[in-house]
């Protein structure tokens, strides 16, 4: 009995250890774009951290809201102070899973279509997100690209009536991460 229990216990530990091949990035890119007839707003963050588990298909992202860079300094200030309230909610995260893991051959270089399902936490609000993207398997590298819309109201990001003409209600978010094997 004891032996069985130990075996079970070890297998519990071993399974994730063995099946995990972790890939990571600290310099992933997330950008977003808001387009209205009045004004275009463009911002970029290239300090995105993410881990991708090729064994289970799990993928997590974390990003500091303050490290988004805008063309206009005042936009950046307003983004942090008034819209995303980055002092209250400094981090935004995504926790999800590649749902079509079986159709990806990590041993073979090439480009694969992926569907990712998960939860995005933004401005302190958690929402389910499903998106499709492209995963490129390279030599010891993975490149994940995708985009998804974020509707501001879903995340309780308020836009005052005075500037509703200038800020799109739905923002296009683009992800571009190049992973390397995690040490």
């Amino acid at each position, binding site marked *: 009995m004891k032996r*069985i229990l130990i075996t079970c216990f070890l*297998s519990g530990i071993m399974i*994730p250890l063995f099946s995990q091949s972790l890939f990571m990035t600290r310099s992933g890119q997330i950008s977003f774009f808001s387009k209205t007839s009045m004004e275009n707003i463009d911002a970029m963050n290239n300090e995105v951290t993410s881990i991708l588990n090729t064994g289970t298909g799990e993928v997590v992202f974390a990003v500091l809201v303050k490290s988004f860079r*805008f063309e206009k*300094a*005042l936009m950046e200030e307003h983004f942090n102070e008034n819209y995303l309230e980055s002092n209250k909610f400094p981090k935004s995260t995504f926790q999800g899973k590649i749902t079509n893991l079986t159709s990806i051959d990590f041993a073979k270089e090439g480009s694969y279509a992926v569907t990712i399902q998960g939860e995005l936490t933004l401005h302190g609000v958690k929402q389910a997100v499903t998106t499709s993207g492209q995963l490129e398997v390279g030599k010891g590298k993975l490149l994940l690209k995708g985009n998804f819309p974020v509707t501001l109201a879903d995340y309780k990001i308020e836009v005052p009536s005075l500037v509703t003409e200038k800020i799109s209600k739905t923002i296009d978010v683009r992800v571009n991460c190049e992973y390397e094997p995690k040490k």
Partner: protein
Amino acid sequence: MNRRNRKTAFGIFVVMMLSVPAWAQDDLMKMLDDETSDKNKTEYATATFKTTRLVNGHSIENVAPGVLDFRISHRFGFISSGAYELWGLDNASMRLGFDYGLTKRLMIGVGRSTYQKQYDGFAKYKILRQSTGARNMPLSVSVVGTVMYKSLKFDDPTRTNYQSSNFYYCGQIIFARKFTEGVSLQIAPTVVHYNFVPTANDPNDLFSVGAGGRFKVSKRVSVNVEYYYQLPANQFAGTYNSLSMGFDVETGGHVFQLYMTNSTGMTERTFISETTGDFFKGDIRLGFTISRVFTIRKPRID
């Protein structure tokens, strides 16, 4: 091994198998957290004040590098002047100014006031920035140097006048702290230098201390208060300390400042050393400033 044990073991195995994915993902998030713990990062306080002026005087804020701030300030007459002057609204004096951010730490600006036909120019440099994280700094510190030139014709053209009499200088050190999202305070020891003073007994260097704060009442509106205390024996006869209070209202690319003050001028020497109104006797002027920023040089975002 009996049947029951086998069953138990199988049960445990199933539970473990099921629980693995559940904790594995939290684990992955935790791993990411650990990997990216921001202990090595320094986070600087931003937006201690909404704009580069509290009311009349400088705040700790700079305009961002590559950004031009066009400021139009209006100052009306004393409210105490009564209905005939429409409580001061009949008389307006103004200052036009252009400020520009050269670097993250250095900004410069020029302006022209109708009051005494004065030109002014200044440079403001951030020495220390309030921060937390790897570098902990409780305060932000800036220095400001201002030169003012009065182009008004000389009072008495018959005597020997020197152009140097029309130059005035001001130096300030500003200490500021953003205490919370809504409360920021600053204190600014100041010296104003006159090449030419009204009477022989007046000092050429006048020391004062400015203090002020802002209190946010909503995300886009704050209440500002500013006071300049002239040290004893550092003031001209008949002048008062400058006291101002007002609102900052932010509307997209503009900041709109609306305030009450007992000062007439909008540059350091005129509001610190030459304020003739007694705030508490109703010698209060309404004023407003519109600040509009333009991005001249775009920062690289790649």
